[in-house]
């Protein structure tokens, strides 16, 4: 009986092109776009700035060695990894930058030293220092070149004294990334994974839930269902099942979306190198899963789909029309967005076990842990249990509403 009720609601959903697109296409397109497109865009932007020859204004003259270093391309294995800049004479460095004629401008009020030991002089660098474009482009390049110039002069001087380059750095630091390999791969956008998964569970279940509750009222089909010899509990279970199935379908396609973007990213990173690719790798929210991780993820998604579906149905049955239900349900997105925002800073929070007992939020943290390869089975089970208890309570609430005249015949 439960399945018959569910099949009826599912068939209706399946015939609805728009809902189908929202359930299947949206996660498949939106997720790779967000988790891949964003880092790729940033990576290729920064890479582009590295490759571009920006104009840098110069007031007066510069030491020849510094000029050459600024103009020179940096080569590695026959490839230009960083283009030099084009130096153009300007009179007012500040104005030249503001007008956009040059990306940066340099001015040495006093002659610059050409050898170490000649004292120190200031080089003024004009640029829009907080702009990412300047930092990745002209401003960053000037700073790098000056650093290297200083180092070259110092090394020359040390050599004259019979000392090697190691004199400058008696102690060097070598950092080794000790985060698990999965965490390294998951990148800074990893928090997007639990957020988008739950978001798609919500948006995937929404249409079916409203259609099966307020929609039935609006169309005048609820009454005929309630006069059939099906128990109220079966009606509610059937509707819950249908909603959970569409919600889970959406969640599965969102996982597929992540796996696709992980695959594409792997291919992309193999064919490219340099700073741009590094940034893409560091930012990207990519998913690579073990079998256990996949199962845990499915369990979390299914239990989250169940509690969200129960919530949707409990709310949907109160509404008199599709529209009214939508206005009640729209704010639910916040229930997912707000925890996701917190999740971004999960590194700074010391999470106690109690967090995992919070329905939905516990699942989000657990999914993030799985993505980072740092999940603990007990925490995952706790999170699933919390969802199931929440789902049971909300289902009882929905069942009560289905039995109440004031709710069914609200006018």
């Amino acid at each position, binding site marked *: 009986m439960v399945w*018959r009720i569910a099949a009826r609601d599912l068939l209706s959903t399946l015939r609805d092109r728009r809902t189908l697109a929202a359930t299947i296409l949206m996660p498949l397109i939106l997720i790779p776009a967000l988790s891949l497109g964003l880092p790729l865009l940033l990576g290729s932007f920064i890479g582009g700035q590295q490759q571009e020859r920006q104009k840098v204004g110069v007031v007066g003259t510069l030491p020849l060695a510094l000029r050459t270093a600024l103009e020179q391309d940096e080569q590695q294995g026959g490839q230009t990894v960083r283009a030099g800049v084009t130096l153009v004479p300007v009179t007012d460095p500040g104005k030249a930058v503001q007008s956009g004629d040059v990306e940066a401008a340099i001015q040495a009020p006093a002659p610059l030293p050409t050898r170490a030991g000649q004292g120190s002089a200031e080089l003024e660098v004009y640029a829009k220092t907080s702009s990412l474009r300047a930092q990745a482009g002209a401003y960053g390049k000037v700073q790098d070149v000056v650093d290297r110039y200083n180092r070259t002069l110092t090394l020359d001087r040390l050599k004259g004294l019979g000392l090697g380059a190691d004199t400058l750095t008696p102690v060097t630091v070598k950092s080794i990334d000790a985060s698990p390999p999965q965490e390294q791969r998951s990148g800074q956008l990893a928090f997007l994974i639990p957020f988008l998964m739950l978001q798609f569970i919500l948006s995937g279940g929404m249409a079916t839930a409203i259609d099966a509750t307020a929609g039935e009222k609006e169309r005048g*089909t609820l009454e005929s269902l309630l006069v059939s010899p099906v128990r109220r509990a079966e009606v509610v279970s059937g509707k819950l099942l249908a909603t959970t199935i569409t919600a889970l379908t959406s969640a599965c396609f969102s996982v597929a979306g992540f796996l696709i973007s992980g695959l594409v990213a792997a291919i992309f990173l193999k064919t490219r190198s340099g700073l741009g690719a590094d940034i893409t790798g560091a930012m990207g929210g990519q998913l690579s899963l073990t079998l256990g991780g996949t199962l845990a993820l499915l369990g979390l998604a299914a239990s989250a789909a169940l509690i969200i579906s129960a919530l949707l149905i409990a709310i949907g049955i109160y509404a008199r029309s599709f529209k009214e239900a939508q206005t009640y349900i729209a704010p639910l997105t916040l229930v997912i967005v707000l925890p996701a925002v917190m999740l971004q800073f999960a590194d700074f929070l010391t999470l106690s076990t109690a967090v995992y007992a919070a329905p939905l939020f516990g699942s989000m943290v657990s999914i993030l842990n799985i993505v980072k390869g740092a999940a603990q089975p007990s925490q995952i089970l706790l999170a699933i249990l919390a969802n199931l208890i929440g789902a049971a309570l909300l289902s009882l609430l929905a069942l009560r509403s289905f039995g109440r005249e004031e709710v069914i015949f609200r006018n």
Partner: protein
Amino acid sequence: MTQTQTMLDIHNVTKTYGKFTALKGVSLSAPEGEVFGLLGPNGAGKTTLLRILATLLRPTSGTAAVAGYDVLRRPEEVRRRVGVVNGGMGLPARLTGREVLRSFAGLYGMNRAQTEARIAELDAGLELGRTLDVRAGDYSTGMKQKVVIARAVIQDPPVLILDEAASGLDIFARRTLLDFVLATRAPGRLTLYSTHVMSEAEEVCDRVAILHEGQLLTVGRIPDILAQTGEGNLERAFFSLVRGGEQRAV
């Protein structure tokens, strides 16, 4: 002679919505083999009474039994035996008529063969034709109402509750409906027919009850009501009874 069975037994039923009393102690009974009319102006309480009989609403006090089962104590038995149609009922827009009928047959526990045989029967009786394979979202009012009726009687219930079932229908669809109702006047069956349209009641109802502001003004065979009021037709008799009821209430 076999004894006729009482299909409907309502005893002193009241129903309040918050402070408002929609039914004020209604008692009625009807045997099998009748089409029983429920007449009354807007807000009289017809829909409320019929929903109580369909177990959708609980009476505030009093008892009601349908096909021998108490609506409060055995609601599932009652639901197994009633088919309900009201003017506001619709169909799932993205399903075809046939799919709706099959899905409901499943809810009543009918098997495939029973279902298909019953659909063929209803197809003939209600002249459904190609309507069955069109999605309900594309139905005209008449097509929709016919499928709604077919859905309500898919399990061939002994008790049929029709609440303003003919509203909005053109003369062809109305004719089909009235003929269908007349065919239910048979042993072991009872049809409750609520309407505003007196000519419909005159044509199909064996007996009628006139309800006004939650109270029964009269119950009886149409010729008896005409004789009792001294009026020539049911519409005039209706007015005379309703006015009389209002005067008594003052």
